[in-house]
């Protein structure tokens, strides 16, 4: 057998892209409304995020985030670790509670084109969900949404994150 082996990293990445693509296609079939699909994608991302954070913390061994700038840096390195892209952190709000990730290439949307009638579909919502889910597990309540999307003809993909509040440890029921 002298066949060349594949670049497994690349194959895996394409596999994720294609699998995600077929899932979205299936959802578009299942739901009449693209908004429902976006919502589902966000939920799926959320579910993945709450698991992904564990993997991230064990792989990187990072501690608690000191402030939101630190959080942004760590999410940036998570992007590099999981998607192999290095987004820029930009557009800080004056209050310092909002920022954006700019991705000039997005592995999830490679090989993807959106048809005209699905222009409302937020294809990358899964990333927003994942960020929200992962941060919730480290007691940060955030909102995340897509501002710019390459699939809709924008130059870059921009994902906005807004800090809402710090979650407090809830006291277990029945304890003082």
């Amino acid at each position, binding site marked *: *057998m002298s*066949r060349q*082996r*594949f670049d*497994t*990293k*690349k*194959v*895996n*990445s*394409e*596999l*994720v*892209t*294609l*699998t*995600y*693509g*077929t*899932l979205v*296609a*299936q*959802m578009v079939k*299942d739901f009449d409304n693209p908004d429902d699909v976006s919502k*589902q994608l966000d939920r*799926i991302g959320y*579910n*993945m995020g709450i*698991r*992904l954070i564990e*993997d991230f913390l064990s792989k990187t061994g990072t501690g608690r985030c000191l402030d939101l700038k630190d959080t942004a840096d760590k999410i940036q390195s998570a992007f590099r*670790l*999981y*998607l*192999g*892209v290095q987004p820029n952190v930009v557009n800080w709000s004056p209050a310092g509670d909002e920022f954006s990730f700019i991705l000039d290439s997005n*592995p999830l949307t490679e090989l993807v084109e959106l048809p005209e009638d699905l222009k409302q579909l937020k294809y990358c919502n899964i990333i927003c969900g994942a960020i929200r889910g992962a941060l919730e597990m480290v007691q940060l309540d955030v909102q995340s949404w897509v501002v710019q999307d390459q699939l809709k003809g924008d130059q870059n993909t921009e994902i906005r994150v807004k800090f809402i509040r710090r979650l407090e440890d809830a006291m277990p029921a029945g304890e003082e």
Partner: protein
Amino acid sequence: MADDILLDLLHSEIVQYVVGNNDNMKDEDLSTLEYIGFSTGYRIIERLTKEMPRFKDELDTMKFICTDFWSAVYKKQIDNLRTNHQGVYVLQDNVFRFLSRLSNGKQYLEVAPRYVTFTCGVIRGSLANLNIQCLVTAEVQSLPSCKFHIQVQRT
């Protein structure tokens, strides 16, 4: 460039999505899951084999699925390939990737089909794009090993 764990998580979310959609049925309907696998396989194989020479015959194709394809997607080769030379192939994977994280006992045997159906679809889709129409079923007797039965449809 995505990390391996993404696929694992995505896969389990897909399973969850499909299983969550069919309620009140005694027998789970996993055909959607199989179809998602089918279209994934149909597309991935096209990209994997685009630079490759034509396969000699059916067996050669199966060998490709068991070695290169399997190790690219499932990080290991198929442990055992058997065939009756009449269109039936049995691929055995002793530590199947999507089952390897479930408990090894009999506890989760009932739900195991959920975790292998996607792959049945992937195999069927891949072979379909290589012009081999077939039926793929999976058999799980003890986790985490799994046997995929491929029955080639001759017309």
